[in-house]
Protein backbone atom coordinates (compact mmCIF):
# COMPACT_ATOMS: atom_id res chain seq x y z
CA UNK A 1 0.00 0.00 0.00
CA UNK A 2 1.96 2.96 -1.29
CA UNK A 3 -0.71 5.60 -1.72
CA UNK A 4 -3.15 6.30 1.13
CA UNK A 5 -6.26 6.82 -1.00
CA UNK A 6 -8.94 6.43 1.65
CA UNK A 7 -8.06 7.49 5.13
CA UNK A 8 -10.09 7.24 8.33
CA UNK A 9 -8.41 9.17 11.09
CA UNK A 10 -9.46 8.51 14.70
CA UNK A 11 -13.07 7.97 13.66
CA UNK A 12 -15.72 7.27 16.27
CA UNK A 13 -19.44 6.78 15.85
CA UNK A 14 -22.03 6.53 18.59
CA UNK A 15 -25.76 5.93 18.22
CA UNK A 16 -27.68 7.25 21.20
CA UNK A 17 -24.73 6.86 23.56
CA UNK A 18 -23.73 3.41 22.29
CA UNK A 19 -20.29 3.45 20.70
CA UNK A 20 -20.31 1.45 17.50
CA UNK A 21 -16.98 2.58 16.09
CA UNK A 22 -14.31 3.40 18.62
CA UNK A 23 -11.39 5.71 17.73
CA UNK A 24 -10.53 3.84 14.58
CA UNK A 25 -7.73 4.42 12.06
CA UNK A 26 -7.81 2.82 8.64
CA UNK A 27 -5.97 3.56 5.41
CA UNK A 28 -6.72 1.94 2.09
CA UNK A 29 -4.50 2.23 -0.96
CA UNK A 30 -5.56 3.12 -4.50
CA UNK A 31 -6.64 0.00 -6.34
CA UNK A 32 -6.70 -2.08 -3.20
CA UNK A 33 -9.37 -4.66 -2.32
CA UNK A 34 -9.92 -4.49 1.42
CA UNK A 35 -12.46 -6.61 3.27
CA UNK A 36 -13.98 -5.50 6.53
CA UNK A 37 -14.65 -8.73 8.38
CA UNK A 38 -16.35 -9.19 11.71
CA UNK A 39 -19.43 -10.39 13.54
CA UNK A 40 -22.63 -8.37 13.26
CA UNK A 41 -22.53 -5.25 15.39
CA UNK A 42 -18.74 -4.99 15.18
CA UNK A 43 -18.91 -1.67 13.34
CA UNK A 44 -17.87 -2.79 9.86
CA UNK A 45 -21.11 -1.74 8.14
CA UNK A 46 -21.09 1.58 10.01
CA UNK A 47 -17.62 2.27 8.56
CA UNK A 48 -18.98 1.56 5.09
CA UNK A 49 -21.98 3.85 5.66
CA UNK A 50 -19.63 6.62 6.78
CA UNK A 51 -17.55 6.15 3.63
CA UNK A 52 -20.72 6.32 1.51
CA UNK A 53 -21.98 9.37 3.39
CA UNK A 54 -25.14 7.87 4.89
CA UNK A 55 -23.71 8.30 8.39
CA UNK A 56 -21.36 10.98 9.63
CA UNK A 57 -18.70 10.28 12.22
CA UNK A 58 -19.24 11.50 15.77
CA UNK A 59 -15.52 12.29 15.91
CA UNK A 60 -12.57 12.02 13.56
CA UNK A 61 -12.15 12.63 9.84
CA UNK A 62 -12.64 10.68 6.64
CA UNK A 63 -10.64 11.68 3.57
CA UNK A 64 -10.47 10.53 -0.01
CA UNK A 65 -7.38 11.26 -2.09
CA UNK A 66 -6.23 13.83 0.44
CA UNK A 67 -9.51 15.79 0.65
CA UNK A 68 -11.87 15.57 3.61
CA UNK A 69 -15.22 14.05 2.68
CA UNK A 70 -16.91 13.46 6.02
CA UNK A 71 -19.23 16.45 5.55
CA UNK A 72 -19.96 15.74 1.89
CA UNK A 73 -23.48 14.44 1.09
CA UNK A 74 -23.66 10.96 -0.51
CA UNK A 75 -24.57 12.20 -3.98
CA UNK A 76 -21.36 14.20 -4.24
CA UNK A 77 -18.95 11.46 -3.15
CA UNK A 78 -18.73 9.60 -6.46
CA UNK A 79 -18.68 6.17 -4.86
CA UNK A 80 -20.51 3.11 -6.14
CA UNK A 81 -22.44 1.26 -3.46
CA UNK A 82 -23.69 -2.33 -3.76
CA UNK A 83 -26.16 -3.45 -1.10
CA UNK A 84 -27.00 -6.96 0.07
CA UNK A 85 -30.63 -6.33 -0.86
CA UNK A 86 -29.55 -5.23 -4.39
CA UNK A 87 -31.56 -1.96 -3.97
CA UNK A 88 -32.49 -1.79 -7.64
CA UNK A 89 -35.19 0.67 -8.72
CA UNK A 90 -38.20 -1.66 -9.02
CA UNK A 91 -40.09 0.70 -11.34
CA UNK A 92 -37.31 0.94 -13.91
CA UNK A 93 -35.92 -1.55 -16.39
CA UNK A 94 -32.46 -3.06 -16.06
CA UNK A 95 -31.09 -0.65 -18.67
CA UNK A 96 -32.74 2.34 -16.96
CA UNK A 97 -31.26 1.25 -13.63
CA UNK A 98 -27.77 1.12 -15.09
CA UNK A 99 -28.30 4.39 -16.99
CA UNK A 100 -29.37 6.22 -13.81
CA UNK A 101 -25.93 7.36 -12.57
CA UNK A 102 -24.96 8.46 -16.09
CA UNK A 103 -28.17 10.48 -16.50
CA UNK A 104 -27.50 12.07 -13.09
CA UNK A 105 -24.17 13.20 -14.52
CA UNK A 106 -25.89 14.77 -17.50
CA UNK A 107 -24.33 12.45 -20.06
CA UNK A 108 -25.71 12.60 -23.62
CA UNK A 109 -28.14 9.87 -24.64
CA UNK A 110 -26.04 8.07 -27.29
CA UNK A 111 -23.10 7.83 -24.92
CA UNK A 112 -25.35 6.60 -22.09
CA UNK A 113 -26.68 3.83 -24.34
CA UNK A 114 -23.18 2.71 -25.30
CA UNK A 115 -21.91 2.66 -21.74
CA UNK A 116 -24.99 0.84 -20.43
CA UNK A 117 -24.62 -1.82 -23.11
CA UNK A 118 -20.94 -2.31 -22.25
CA UNK A 119 -21.65 -2.49 -18.51
CA UNK A 120 -24.41 -5.06 -19.02
CA UNK A 121 -22.15 -7.11 -21.27
CA UNK A 122 -19.51 -7.06 -18.58
CA UNK A 123 -21.92 -8.78 -16.18
CA UNK A 124 -23.33 -10.99 -18.97
CA UNK A 125 -26.80 -9.49 -18.83
CA UNK A 126 -26.92 -7.80 -22.24
CA UNK A 127 -30.02 -9.80 -23.18
CA UNK A 128 -31.95 -8.63 -20.11
CA UNK A 129 -31.79 -4.87 -20.68
CA UNK A 130 -35.56 -4.41 -21.04
CA UNK A 131 -36.61 -6.60 -18.11
CA UNK A 132 -37.81 -5.29 -14.77
CA UNK A 133 -35.73 -6.26 -11.71
CA UNK A 134 -38.57 -8.42 -10.38
CA UNK A 135 -38.26 -10.61 -13.48
CA UNK A 136 -34.63 -11.51 -12.67
CA UNK A 137 -33.14 -14.04 -10.26
CA UNK A 138 -31.26 -12.87 -7.17
CA UNK A 139 -27.89 -13.44 -8.79
CA UNK A 140 -28.91 -11.53 -11.90
CA UNK A 141 -30.27 -8.66 -9.83
CA UNK A 142 -27.00 -8.42 -7.95
CA UNK A 143 -25.09 -8.35 -11.24
CA UNK A 144 -27.31 -5.45 -12.37
CA UNK A 145 -26.54 -3.67 -9.10
CA UNK A 146 -22.85 -4.28 -9.76
CA UNK A 147 -23.09 -2.91 -13.30
CA UNK A 148 -24.96 0.14 -11.99
CA UNK A 149 -22.28 0.78 -9.34
CA UNK A 150 -19.45 0.45 -11.86
CA UNK A 151 -20.86 2.11 -14.99
CA UNK A 152 -19.95 5.65 -13.92
CA UNK A 153 -16.37 4.63 -13.13
CA UNK A 154 -16.47 5.69 -9.49
CA UNK A 155 -13.30 6.29 -7.52
CA UNK A 156 -14.31 3.70 -4.96
CA UNK A 157 -16.82 0.85 -4.88
CA UNK A 158 -18.33 -0.01 -1.51
CA UNK A 159 -19.98 -3.39 -1.09
CA UNK A 160 -22.15 -4.23 1.91
CA UNK A 161 -22.37 -8.03 2.11
CA UNK A 162 -23.30 -8.09 -1.57
CA UNK A 163 -23.34 -11.87 -1.83
CA UNK A 164 -25.07 -12.59 1.47
CA UNK A 165 -28.46 -13.33 -0.08
CA UNK A 166 -27.16 -15.72 -2.75
CA UNK A 167 -26.81 -19.48 -2.51
CA UNK A 168 -23.38 -21.03 -2.11
CA UNK A 169 -22.64 -21.92 -5.71
CA UNK A 170 -23.73 -18.57 -7.08
CA UNK A 171 -21.79 -16.81 -4.34
CA UNK A 172 -18.56 -18.51 -5.34
CA UNK A 173 -19.09 -17.63 -8.99
CA UNK A 174 -19.78 -13.99 -8.06
CA UNK A 175 -16.66 -13.91 -5.87
CA UNK A 176 -14.58 -14.84 -8.89
CA UNK A 177 -16.45 -12.34 -11.09
CA UNK A 178 -15.94 -9.47 -8.67
CA UNK A 179 -12.26 -10.31 -8.22
CA UNK A 180 -11.86 -10.42 -11.95
CA UNK A 181 -13.58 -7.04 -12.43
CA UNK A 182 -11.47 -5.57 -9.64
CA UNK A 183 -8.29 -6.65 -11.35
CA UNK A 184 -9.40 -5.59 -14.82
CA UNK A 185 -10.62 -2.12 -13.89
CA UNK A 186 -8.09 -1.41 -11.15
CA UNK A 187 -10.88 -0.38 -8.77
CA UNK A 188 -10.56 0.42 -5.11
CA UNK A 189 -13.04 -1.84 -3.35
CA UNK A 190 -14.13 -1.87 0.28
CA UNK A 191 -16.03 -5.08 0.90
CA UNK A 192 -17.99 -5.76 4.08
CA UNK A 193 -18.63 -9.38 4.96
CA UNK A 194 -19.07 -11.70 7.90
CA UNK A 195 -17.98 -14.69 5.82
CA UNK A 196 -14.31 -15.33 6.57
CA UNK A 197 -13.86 -17.58 3.54
CA UNK A 198 -15.08 -14.78 1.28
CA UNK A 199 -12.73 -12.28 2.94
CA UNK A 200 -9.73 -14.58 2.59
CA UNK A 201 -10.27 -15.53 -1.03
CA UNK A 202 -11.13 -12.08 -2.40
CA UNK A 203 -9.05 -9.49 -0.59
CA UNK A 204 -5.65 -7.90 -0.82
CA UNK A 205 -6.00 -7.16 2.87
CA UNK A 206 -8.51 -8.13 5.53
CA UNK A 207 -9.45 -5.93 8.48
CA UNK A 208 -10.91 -7.97 11.33
CA UNK A 209 -13.41 -5.97 13.37
CA UNK A 210 -14.43 -6.57 16.95
CA UNK A 211 -16.46 -4.24 19.15
CA UNK A 212 -15.88 -1.14 17.02
CA UNK A 213 -12.15 -1.61 16.70
CA UNK A 214 -9.85 -3.28 14.20
CA UNK A 215 -8.21 -6.28 15.86
CA UNK A 216 -5.85 -6.83 12.95
CA UNK A 217 -5.45 -5.69 9.37
CA UNK A 218 -3.15 -7.69 7.12
CA UNK A 219 -2.98 -9.92 4.06
CA UNK A 220 -5.22 -13.00 4.16
CA UNK A 221 -2.18 -15.27 4.58
CA UNK A 222 -0.76 -13.24 7.44
CA UNK A 223 -4.10 -12.99 9.20
CA UNK A 224 -4.81 -16.71 8.91
CA UNK A 225 -1.33 -17.97 9.77
CA UNK A 226 -0.29 -15.29 12.24
CA UNK A 227 -3.38 -13.95 14.01
CA UNK A 228 -2.51 -11.21 16.44
CA UNK A 229 -5.20 -12.00 18.98
CA UNK A 230 -7.28 -14.90 20.14
CA UNK A 231 -10.38 -13.28 18.62
CA UNK A 232 -8.80 -13.18 15.16
CA UNK A 233 -7.56 -16.76 15.47
CA UNK A 234 -11.03 -17.98 16.37
CA UNK A 235 -12.95 -15.81 13.90
CA UNK A 236 -10.92 -16.91 10.87
CA UNK A 237 -11.57 -20.55 10.40
CA UNK A 238 -11.44 -23.23 12.98
CA UNK A 239 -8.62 -23.50 15.45
CA UNK A 240 -7.58 -25.42 18.54
CA UNK A 241 -6.59 -23.20 21.43
CA UNK A 242 -4.29 -24.61 24.09
CA UNK A 243 -3.54 -22.57 27.20
CA UNK A 244 -0.06 -22.65 28.68
CA UNK A 245 2.78 -20.72 30.29
CA UNK A 246 5.95 -19.50 28.60
CA UNK A 247 8.87 -21.63 29.76
CA UNK A 248 11.57 -20.11 27.61
CA UNK A 249 11.30 -17.37 25.05
CA UNK A 250 13.71 -17.29 22.11
CA UNK A 251 13.99 -15.35 18.85
CA UNK A 252 10.80 -16.14 16.90
CA UNK A 253 10.06 -19.25 18.92
CA UNK A 254 9.07 -20.08 22.46
CA UNK A 255 8.69 -23.13 24.61
CA UNK A 256 5.25 -23.32 26.17
CA UNK A 257 4.45 -25.64 29.03
CA UNK A 258 0.84 -26.82 28.80
CA UNK A 259 -1.60 -28.43 31.25
CA UNK A 260 -0.05 -31.88 31.67
CA UNK A 261 3.50 -30.54 31.74
CA UNK A 262 4.27 -31.27 28.09
CA UNK A 263 6.50 -28.65 26.46
CA UNK A 264 5.40 -27.26 23.08
CA UNK A 265 7.73 -25.49 20.69
CA UNK A 266 5.80 -22.77 18.92
CA UNK A 267 6.48 -19.88 16.53
CA UNK A 268 5.72 -16.32 17.58
CA UNK A 269 6.22 -12.69 16.59
CA UNK A 270 5.40 -11.46 20.06
CA UNK A 271 8.01 -10.52 22.63
CA UNK A 272 7.26 -12.97 25.38
CA UNK A 273 8.54 -13.12 28.94
CA UNK A 274 9.21 -16.28 30.85
CA UNK A 275 6.26 -17.23 33.04
CA UNK A 276 3.75 -15.29 30.89
CA UNK A 277 0.37 -16.95 30.38
CA UNK A 278 -0.30 -17.51 26.67
CA UNK A 279 -2.54 -19.45 24.29
CA UNK A 280 -1.25 -21.64 21.47
CA UNK A 281 -3.37 -21.68 18.30
CA UNK A 282 -3.18 -24.85 16.27
CA UNK A 283 -5.16 -25.17 13.03
CA UNK A 284 -6.94 -28.53 12.61
CA UNK A 285 -5.37 -29.09 9.18
CA UNK A 286 -1.86 -28.74 10.66
CA UNK A 287 -2.43 -31.40 13.27
CA UNK A 288 -1.17 -34.91 12.40
CA UNK A 289 -2.30 -38.09 14.11
CA UNK A 290 0.61 -40.46 14.48
CA UNK A 291 1.13 -43.78 16.27
CA UNK A 292 4.47 -42.63 17.66
CA UNK A 293 5.57 -39.56 19.61
CA UNK A 294 8.56 -38.93 17.34
CA UNK A 295 7.91 -35.29 16.45
CA UNK A 296 9.03 -31.95 17.89
CA UNK A 297 5.61 -31.58 19.48
CA UNK A 298 3.50 -34.55 20.50
CA UNK A 299 0.47 -34.76 22.77
CA UNK A 300 -0.85 -38.18 23.80
CA UNK A 301 -4.52 -38.49 22.97
CA UNK A 302 -7.45 -40.86 22.50
CA UNK A 303 -9.76 -40.71 19.48
CA UNK A 304 -13.23 -39.57 20.57
CA UNK A 305 -14.99 -39.30 17.24
CA UNK A 306 -14.26 -39.52 13.53
CA UNK A 307 -16.55 -38.02 10.90
CA UNK A 308 -16.25 -38.45 7.14
CA UNK A 309 -16.62 -35.12 5.26
CA UNK A 310 -15.93 -36.24 1.71
CA UNK A 311 -12.78 -34.27 1.04
CA UNK A 312 -11.38 -34.76 4.54
CA UNK A 313 -12.01 -36.62 7.79
CA UNK A 314 -12.60 -34.72 10.98
CA UNK A 315 -11.22 -36.45 14.01
CA UNK A 316 -11.95 -35.26 17.52
CA UNK A 317 -9.38 -36.38 20.05
CA UNK A 318 -9.14 -36.06 23.80
CA UNK A 319 -5.73 -34.81 24.91
CA UNK A 320 -4.62 -33.82 28.42
CA UNK A 321 -5.04 -30.21 27.35
CA UNK A 322 -8.65 -30.73 26.37
CA UNK A 323 -10.52 -31.74 23.24
CA UNK A 324 -8.77 -31.09 19.89
CA UNK A 325 -9.98 -31.22 16.29
CA UNK A 326 -7.84 -32.62 13.50
CA UNK A 327 -8.58 -32.53 9.76
CA UNK A 328 -6.93 -35.55 8.28
CA UNK A 329 -6.75 -35.99 4.52
CA UNK A 330 -9.02 -38.55 2.91
CA UNK A 331 -7.22 -41.77 2.32
CA UNK A 332 -5.42 -41.48 5.66
CA UNK A 333 -5.97 -44.49 7.94
CA UNK A 334 -9.40 -44.48 9.60
CA UNK A 335 -9.37 -44.11 13.36
CA UNK A 336 -11.55 -46.18 15.65
CA UNK A 337 -13.10 -44.59 18.67
CA UNK A 338 -10.91 -44.97 21.72
CA UNK A 339 -7.74 -45.66 19.71
CA UNK A 340 -4.56 -44.32 21.34
CA UNK A 341 -2.62 -41.86 19.22
CA UNK A 342 -0.35 -38.85 19.33
CA UNK A 343 -1.27 -35.40 18.09
CA UNK A 344 1.92 -34.18 16.43
CA UNK A 345 2.81 -30.85 14.84
CA UNK A 346 5.88 -28.81 13.90
CA UNK A 347 6.77 -25.57 15.75
CA UNK A 348 5.94 -23.63 12.57
CA UNK A 349 2.44 -25.09 12.54
CA UNK A 350 1.33 -23.54 15.79
CA UNK A 351 1.26 -19.92 16.83
CA UNK A 352 1.52 -18.22 20.21
CA UNK A 353 -1.10 -15.63 21.18
CA UNK A 354 -0.84 -13.39 24.21
CA UNK A 355 -3.61 -13.84 26.71
Amino acid at each position, binding site marked *: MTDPFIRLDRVSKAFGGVTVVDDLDLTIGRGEFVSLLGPSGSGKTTILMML*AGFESPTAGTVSLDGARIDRL*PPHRRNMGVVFQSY*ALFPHRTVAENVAFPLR*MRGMARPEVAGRVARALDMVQLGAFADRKPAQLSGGQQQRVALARALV*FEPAVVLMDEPLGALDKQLREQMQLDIRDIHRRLGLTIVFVTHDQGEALTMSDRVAVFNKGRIEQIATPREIYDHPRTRFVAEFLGETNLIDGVVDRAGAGTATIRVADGTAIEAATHHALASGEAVTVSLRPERLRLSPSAEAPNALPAAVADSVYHGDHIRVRIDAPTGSLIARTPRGAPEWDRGARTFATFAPGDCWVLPR
Partner: protein
Amino acid sequence: MLRPVRLVFGLLATLFLLAPLVAILPLGFTASLFLEYPIPALSLRWMTELFTAEIWRRSIVNSLIVGAGTTLLATVLGTLAALGLRDRLLPLSGIVRIFCLLPMVVPAVVMGVGMQVLFVRLGLANSYLGVIVAHTVVAVPFVLVNVSAALAGIDRRVERAAASLGAAPATVLRTVTLPLALPGILSGAVFAFATSLDEVVLTLFVAGPNQRTLARQMFSTIRENISPAIAAAAFLFIAGTVLVAGAALLVRGRLSARG
Protein backbone atom coordinates in the same frame (compact mmCIF):
# COMPACT_ATOMS: atom_id res chain seq x y z
CA MET B 1 -68.08 -27.97 9.34
CA LEU B 2 -66.97 -24.34 9.63
CA ARG B 3 -67.23 -23.72 5.93
CA PRO B 4 -71.02 -23.33 5.65
CA VAL B 5 -71.01 -21.17 8.78
CA ARG B 6 -68.38 -18.91 7.31
CA LEU B 7 -70.26 -18.71 4.03
CA VAL B 8 -73.53 -17.76 5.71
CA PHE B 9 -71.81 -15.22 7.94
CA GLY B 10 -70.08 -13.68 4.93
CA LEU B 11 -73.34 -13.42 3.02
CA LEU B 12 -75.13 -11.83 5.98
CA ALA B 13 -72.34 -9.30 6.49
CA THR B 14 -72.41 -8.39 2.81
CA LEU B 15 -76.19 -8.07 2.88
CA PHE B 16 -75.97 -5.85 5.95
CA LEU B 17 -73.62 -3.52 4.07
CA LEU B 18 -75.56 -3.54 0.81
CA ALA B 19 -79.13 -3.44 2.14
CA PRO B 20 -79.43 0.36 2.32
CA LEU B 21 -78.23 0.65 -1.27
CA VAL B 22 -80.60 -2.06 -2.43
CA ALA B 23 -83.42 -0.22 -0.68
CA ILE B 24 -82.77 3.21 -2.18
CA LEU B 25 -81.38 2.61 -5.65
CA PRO B 26 -84.53 1.24 -7.39
CA LEU B 27 -86.47 4.27 -6.20
CA GLY B 28 -84.32 6.45 -8.44
CA PHE B 29 -86.12 4.86 -11.38
CA THR B 30 -89.66 5.13 -10.13
CA ALA B 31 -92.45 6.87 -11.98
CA SER B 32 -94.12 7.79 -8.69
CA LEU B 33 -94.03 11.26 -7.15
CA PHE B 34 -93.04 9.91 -3.78
CA LEU B 35 -90.18 7.98 -2.24
CA GLU B 36 -92.21 4.83 -1.70
CA TYR B 37 -92.59 1.16 -2.43
CA PRO B 38 -94.04 -0.55 -4.35
CA ILE B 39 -92.78 1.09 -7.51
CA PRO B 40 -95.77 1.61 -9.82
CA ALA B 41 -93.72 1.82 -13.02
CA LEU B 42 -90.11 2.36 -14.08
CA SER B 43 -89.16 5.76 -15.43
CA LEU B 44 -86.16 7.97 -16.01
CA ARG B 45 -88.04 11.12 -15.06
CA TRP B 46 -86.08 11.69 -11.86
CA MET B 47 -82.75 11.09 -13.57
CA THR B 48 -83.78 13.68 -16.17
CA GLU B 49 -84.88 15.97 -13.35
CA LEU B 50 -81.37 15.84 -11.84
CA PHE B 51 -79.79 17.15 -15.00
CA THR B 52 -82.49 19.58 -16.02
CA ALA B 53 -83.67 21.19 -12.78
CA GLU B 54 -81.30 24.09 -12.17
CA ILE B 55 -80.94 23.43 -8.44
CA TRP B 56 -79.85 19.78 -8.94
CA ARG B 57 -77.65 20.49 -11.94
CA ARG B 58 -75.95 23.28 -10.03
CA SER B 59 -75.32 21.04 -7.00
CA ILE B 60 -73.72 18.35 -9.16
CA VAL B 61 -71.39 20.91 -10.69
CA ASN B 62 -70.62 22.28 -7.23
CA SER B 63 -69.79 18.82 -5.93
CA LEU B 64 -67.41 18.29 -8.81
CA ILE B 65 -65.73 21.69 -8.30
CA VAL B 66 -65.36 21.21 -4.56
CA GLY B 67 -64.37 17.54 -4.95
CA ALA B 68 -61.67 18.34 -7.49
CA GLY B 69 -60.30 21.20 -5.40
CA THR B 70 -60.33 19.11 -2.24
CA THR B 71 -58.65 16.16 -3.95
CA LEU B 72 -55.88 18.35 -5.28
CA LEU B 73 -55.27 20.27 -2.07
CA ALA B 74 -55.61 17.29 0.29
CA THR B 75 -53.41 15.06 -1.84
CA VAL B 76 -50.63 17.62 -2.01
CA LEU B 77 -50.82 18.50 1.69
CA GLY B 78 -51.30 14.92 2.87
CA THR B 79 -48.39 13.66 0.77
CA LEU B 80 -46.12 16.42 2.05
CA ALA B 81 -47.17 15.63 5.62
CA ALA B 82 -46.49 11.93 5.11
CA LEU B 83 -43.03 12.71 3.70
CA GLY B 84 -42.25 15.07 6.55
CA LEU B 85 -43.46 12.71 9.24
CA ARG B 86 -41.73 9.73 7.68
CA ASP B 87 -38.46 9.72 9.62
CA ARG B 88 -39.41 10.75 13.12
CA LEU B 89 -36.63 13.29 12.75
CA LEU B 90 -38.55 15.86 14.72
CA PRO B 91 -38.96 15.00 18.36
CA LEU B 92 -42.60 16.10 18.06
CA SER B 93 -43.42 14.20 14.89
CA GLY B 94 -45.65 11.76 16.77
CA ILE B 95 -47.72 14.61 18.15
CA VAL B 96 -47.85 16.37 14.80
CA ARG B 97 -49.13 13.15 13.20
CA ILE B 98 -51.88 12.87 15.80
CA PHE B 99 -52.91 16.47 15.10
CA CYS B 100 -53.09 15.72 11.41
CA LEU B 101 -55.29 12.68 12.04
CA LEU B 102 -57.51 14.44 14.57
CA PRO B 103 -60.21 15.54 12.07
CA MET B 104 -61.06 11.84 11.69
CA VAL B 105 -62.35 11.68 15.24
CA VAL B 106 -63.34 15.25 16.15
CA PRO B 107 -67.13 15.61 15.69
CA ALA B 108 -67.85 17.42 12.44
CA VAL B 109 -70.35 19.67 14.21
CA VAL B 110 -67.64 20.99 16.49
CA MET B 111 -65.31 21.70 13.57
CA GLY B 112 -68.19 23.17 11.59
CA VAL B 113 -69.02 25.74 14.24
CA GLY B 114 -65.36 26.66 14.61
CA MET B 115 -64.87 27.00 10.90
CA GLN B 116 -67.97 29.11 10.44
CA VAL B 117 -66.73 31.62 13.00
CA LEU B 118 -63.19 31.56 11.64
CA PHE B 119 -64.16 31.75 7.97
CA VAL B 120 -66.33 34.79 8.52
CA ARG B 121 -63.31 36.54 10.02
CA LEU B 122 -61.07 35.42 7.16
CA GLY B 123 -63.63 36.36 4.53
CA LEU B 124 -63.85 32.74 3.39
CA ALA B 125 -67.48 32.26 4.40
CA ASN B 126 -69.84 31.38 1.56
CA SER B 127 -67.01 30.82 -0.91
CA TYR B 128 -65.82 27.83 -2.89
CA LEU B 129 -62.38 28.18 -1.34
CA GLY B 130 -63.94 28.00 2.14
CA VAL B 131 -65.79 24.78 1.34
CA ILE B 132 -62.68 23.28 -0.27
CA VAL B 133 -60.55 24.19 2.76
CA ALA B 134 -63.15 22.69 5.12
CA HIS B 135 -63.35 19.45 3.12
CA THR B 136 -59.56 19.32 2.87
CA VAL B 137 -59.25 19.33 6.66
CA VAL B 138 -61.24 16.09 6.87
CA ALA B 139 -59.71 14.57 3.72
CA VAL B 140 -56.04 15.06 4.63
CA PRO B 141 -55.98 12.25 7.24
CA PHE B 142 -57.00 9.70 4.57
CA VAL B 143 -54.20 10.82 2.29
CA LEU B 144 -51.71 10.88 5.17
CA VAL B 145 -52.57 7.33 6.23
CA ASN B 146 -52.44 5.93 2.69
CA VAL B 147 -49.23 7.67 1.67
CA SER B 148 -47.53 6.83 4.98
CA ALA B 149 -48.30 3.16 4.42
CA ALA B 150 -46.90 3.35 0.89
CA LEU B 151 -43.75 5.11 2.11
CA ALA B 152 -43.26 2.51 4.84
CA GLY B 153 -43.16 -0.12 2.11
CA ILE B 154 -40.23 1.51 0.30
CA ASP B 155 -36.81 0.00 0.99
CA ARG B 156 -34.67 2.89 2.27
CA ARG B 157 -31.65 1.34 0.63
CA VAL B 158 -33.19 1.96 -2.79
CA GLU B 159 -33.19 5.67 -2.02
CA ARG B 160 -29.69 5.45 -0.59
CA ALA B 161 -28.57 3.70 -3.75
CA ALA B 162 -30.00 6.57 -5.81
CA ALA B 163 -28.11 9.08 -3.66
CA SER B 164 -24.86 7.16 -3.99
CA LEU B 165 -25.35 7.14 -7.76
CA GLY B 166 -25.37 10.92 -7.79
CA ALA B 167 -29.00 11.94 -7.20
CA ALA B 168 -29.48 15.01 -4.99
CA PRO B 169 -32.24 14.70 -2.34
CA ALA B 170 -34.86 16.46 -4.51
CA THR B 171 -33.97 14.18 -7.42
CA VAL B 172 -34.26 11.08 -5.23
CA LEU B 173 -37.73 12.27 -4.21
CA ARG B 174 -38.79 12.89 -7.81
CA THR B 175 -37.26 9.82 -9.45
CA VAL B 176 -37.56 7.18 -6.75
CA THR B 177 -39.67 8.02 -3.71
CA LEU B 178 -42.73 9.56 -5.35
CA PRO B 179 -43.01 7.03 -8.21
CA LEU B 180 -42.81 4.18 -5.69
CA ALA B 181 -45.38 5.85 -3.41
CA LEU B 182 -47.72 6.63 -6.31
CA PRO B 183 -50.21 3.80 -5.64
CA GLY B 184 -50.66 5.09 -2.07
CA ILE B 185 -50.98 8.69 -3.27
CA LEU B 186 -53.62 7.57 -5.75
CA SER B 187 -55.60 5.71 -3.07
CA GLY B 188 -55.39 8.77 -0.85
CA ALA B 189 -56.70 10.96 -3.67
CA VAL B 190 -59.70 8.66 -4.22
CA PHE B 191 -60.47 8.73 -0.51
CA ALA B 192 -60.17 12.51 -0.50
CA PHE B 193 -62.61 12.81 -3.41
CA ALA B 194 -65.07 10.40 -1.81
CA THR B 195 -64.82 12.23 1.51
CA SER B 196 -65.59 15.53 -0.16
CA LEU B 197 -68.57 14.12 -2.08
CA ASP B 198 -70.00 12.68 1.10
CA GLU B 199 -69.37 15.62 3.42
CA VAL B 200 -72.59 17.31 4.64
CA VAL B 201 -72.10 18.68 8.14
CA LEU B 202 -69.17 21.02 7.44
CA THR B 203 -70.83 22.07 4.21
CA LEU B 204 -73.95 23.09 6.12
CA PHE B 205 -71.84 25.40 8.26
CA VAL B 206 -69.47 26.96 5.76
CA ALA B 207 -71.20 26.86 2.36
CA GLY B 208 -73.50 29.57 1.12
CA PRO B 209 -76.45 29.01 -1.22
CA ASN B 210 -74.09 29.19 -4.19
CA GLN B 211 -71.91 26.33 -2.96
CA ARG B 212 -74.75 23.90 -2.31
CA THR B 213 -73.25 20.46 -3.06
CA LEU B 214 -75.10 17.32 -4.14
CA ALA B 215 -74.96 15.82 -0.64
CA ARG B 216 -76.18 19.09 0.86
CA GLN B 217 -78.98 19.32 -1.70
CA MET B 218 -80.09 15.75 -0.94
CA PHE B 219 -80.08 16.61 2.73
CA SER B 220 -82.37 19.58 2.36
CA THR B 221 -84.64 17.87 -0.16
CA ILE B 222 -85.30 15.04 2.23
CA ARG B 223 -86.50 17.55 4.82
CA GLU B 224 -88.69 19.47 2.39
CA ASN B 225 -90.40 17.13 -0.02
CA ILE B 226 -88.93 13.57 -0.02
CA SER B 227 -88.71 13.54 -3.81
CA PRO B 228 -87.42 10.41 -5.60
CA ALA B 229 -84.81 12.75 -7.06
CA ILE B 230 -82.89 11.93 -3.87
CA ALA B 231 -82.76 8.28 -4.86
CA ALA B 232 -81.67 9.22 -8.36
CA ALA B 233 -78.93 11.41 -6.84
CA ALA B 234 -77.91 8.51 -4.61
CA PHE B 235 -77.58 6.34 -7.69
CA LEU B 236 -75.41 8.97 -9.33
CA PHE B 237 -73.31 9.12 -6.19
CA ILE B 238 -72.69 5.39 -6.06
CA ALA B 239 -72.03 5.17 -9.78
CA GLY B 240 -69.54 8.05 -9.59
CA THR B 241 -67.72 6.60 -6.59
CA VAL B 242 -67.52 3.12 -8.10
CA LEU B 243 -66.25 4.63 -11.34
CA VAL B 244 -63.51 6.68 -9.62
CA ALA B 245 -62.45 3.81 -7.35
CA GLY B 246 -62.48 1.39 -10.27
CA ALA B 247 -60.31 3.69 -12.34
CA ALA B 248 -57.91 4.07 -9.41
CA LEU B 249 -57.74 0.30 -8.93
CA LEU B 250 -57.01 -0.12 -12.61
CA VAL B 251 -54.16 2.40 -12.52
CA ARG B 252 -52.82 0.83 -9.33
CA GLY B 253 -52.85 -2.55 -11.00
CA ARG B 254 -50.92 -1.12 -13.93
CA LEU B 255 -48.42 0.46 -11.54
CA SER B 256 -47.74 -2.74 -9.65
CA ALA B 257 -47.46 -4.74 -12.86
CA ARG B 258 -44.90 -2.16 -13.93
CA GLY B 259 -42.98 -2.53 -10.65
